């Protein structure tokens, strides 16, 4: 067993990527994720890998596009306004079917917004972000340890499906320190990149072209159908979620992800003392969204569901699509960098459950 070390979330991101075999990192400073780039700038040159501070987030994601097309493991990291700038590149990477990992340590928006923790990039991450019919796999870890584990998964999933994968944390997760263990992982059998990567011919007969342009509508439609088939596979195979305290009859089920889900766990303990049975569905993949988790509890929850977010209800519609009108879906959130206290959330639960017993 590897030793546990106390590490800041942002630095753990860097180390996890290094251990996952990330060969290139292209970044740009922005609060609250700058430590990722700083960590990579210290470590990567020492192990003969590439760290480069780009002139903008736009350039950074396009460097990622170039390196990913060369067949190496590559990552970039930013925070909300910077991730907005990356959307063009992400769309190209998805269109050209290249594997890469993108970190978003989310801060409050819109616009320049603020620098405190938020989850207000849920739509951007899960519903597209850039142009065109594409999907990102989006992981939402809730602890530094889980972030480390998911980053390593992210590189594998990116390679398996030739698709960009986003790991979305919030400022809190990036800044906090927790003990973390870098587990030895079994080497996964991953598909070879030799049949598509543009590495130079080196004797190969057909030239490889990394491309997302299909000028003939028939060709582009065919390409889109291929992508959709891939996304359906991902939906089938890669859904991750946690169900907490969801056994038996439930008064209400909270739905939350990331650091907020940890606050919800405190709420559940508080309310248990008051006789309320509250469960939690914690999506670990925001896309694909864990619809089946809702099937397991929808008939057993008396007052339905409560989405608890650091955003203004962006997750509610995914929950509604999963619940399909069978139970009410409520919302409680804070935004702009405000983080709800357990008491605030508990009060909302009690209000829905018709007052404290």
């Amino acid at each position, binding site marked *: 067993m590897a030793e546990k070390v106390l590490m800041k979330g942002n630095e753990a991101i860097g180390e996890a990527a290094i251990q996952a075999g990330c*060969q*290139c990192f*292209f970044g740009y400073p922005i609060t609250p994720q700058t430590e990722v780039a700083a960590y990579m700038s210290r470590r990567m040159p020492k192990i003969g890998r*590439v760290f*480069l501070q*780009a*002139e*903008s987030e*736009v*350039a*950074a994601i*396009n*460097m*990622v*596009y*170039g*390196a*990913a*097309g*060369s067949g*190496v493991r*590559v990552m970039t990291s930013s925070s909300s306004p910077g991730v907005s700038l990356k959307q*063009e*590149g992400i769309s*190209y990477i998805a269109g*050209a079917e290249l594997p890469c990992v993108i970190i978003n340590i989310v801060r409050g928006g819109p616009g320049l917004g603020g620098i405190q923790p938020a989850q207000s990039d849920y739509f951007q991450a899960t519903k597209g972000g850039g142009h065109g019919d594409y999907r990102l796999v989006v992981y939402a870890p809730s602890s530094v340890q889980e972030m480390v584990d998911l980053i390593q998964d992210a590189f594998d999933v990116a390679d398996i499906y030739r698709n960009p994968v986003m790991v979305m944390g919030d400022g809190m997760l990036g800044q906090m320190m927790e003990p973390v263990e870098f587990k030895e992982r079994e080497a996964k059998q991953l598909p070879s990149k030799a049949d598509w990567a*543009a*590495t*130079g*011919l*080196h*004797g190969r007969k057909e*030239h*490889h*072209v*990394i*491309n*997302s*342009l299909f000028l003939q509508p028939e060709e582009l439609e065919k390409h889109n159908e291929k992508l959709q088939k891939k996304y359906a596979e991902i939906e089938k195979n890669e859904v991750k979620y946690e169900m907490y305290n969801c056994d038996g009859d439930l008064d209400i089920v909270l739905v939350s992800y990331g650091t907020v889900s940890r606050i919800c766990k405190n709420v559940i303990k508080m309310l248990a003392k008051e006789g309320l049975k509250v469960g939690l569905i914690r999506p670990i993949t925001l896309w694909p969204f864990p619809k089946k988790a809702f099937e397991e509890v929808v008939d057993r929850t008396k007052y339905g569901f409560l989405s608890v977010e650091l955003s203004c209800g962006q997750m509610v519609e995914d929950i509604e699509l999963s619940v399909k009108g069978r139970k009410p879906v409520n919302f409680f959130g804070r935004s702009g960098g405000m983080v709800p206290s357990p008491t605030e959330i508990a009060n909302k639960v009690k209000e829905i459950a018709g007052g404290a017993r």
Partner: protein
Amino acid sequence: MAVVFEPTKGLLDVPTHYCPGCTHGIIHRLVAESLEELGVIDKTIGVAPVGCSVLAYNYFACDMHEAAHGRAPAVATGIKRSLPDSVVFTYQGDGDLAAIGTAEIVHAAARGEKITTIFVNNCIYGMTGGQMAPTTLPGQVTETSPYGRDVKLQGHPIRVSEMLSTLDGAVYVERVSVDSVANVLKAKKAIKKAFELQIEGKGFTFVEVLSICPTNWGLSPRESIKWLQDNMIPYYPLGVKKDITQQEVK
């Protein structure tokens, strides 16, 4: 029978989409021949832009990347940094490079990325149908400067080669033209030299090629060549702007 002229192995044997009279074909050939003569087709990765040469990836025989508008130097940076032994070039037009991609080209040059950029300047946006480019000359009529480019309203053209030659990371910058046989030969020499210096690991190399656009200029190819000679060369003087291998910088 003696063979006097052959297709270059650097280009694939496919028809191109370029308009009649367009000089992209010549410039493609000069790049491809240079790669072939240097024996590096096998380890070259090219980056195509958005613009008329967007489909260049279909024509060059080496591995290719298609970049987003203006981002080719960043994409090339990612390729070269991950595959440092490869030869990497971008092939970009003036809208792509000098407008939307200004940041990318300036910083790739400033970093001294070991890549070569072939910059095709024809004073106009070709693919979208002839709009004003950052290189459009004062007074030049385009679809979006129908009364002629008024520098008071629309600003001045950018002399990209002169600008980049001020950066320490750029080791070789030359402006050439393909308006005559003599100049085509000079252009070839410049392009080949740019690749040679890249292969030697010297730094960022850049060749600006003055080119014509008969379709969007509304001129015949022959008139276009004359327009280039009469209007473009005076504003965009040919020659080496920087060469670290020469003591004397012109």
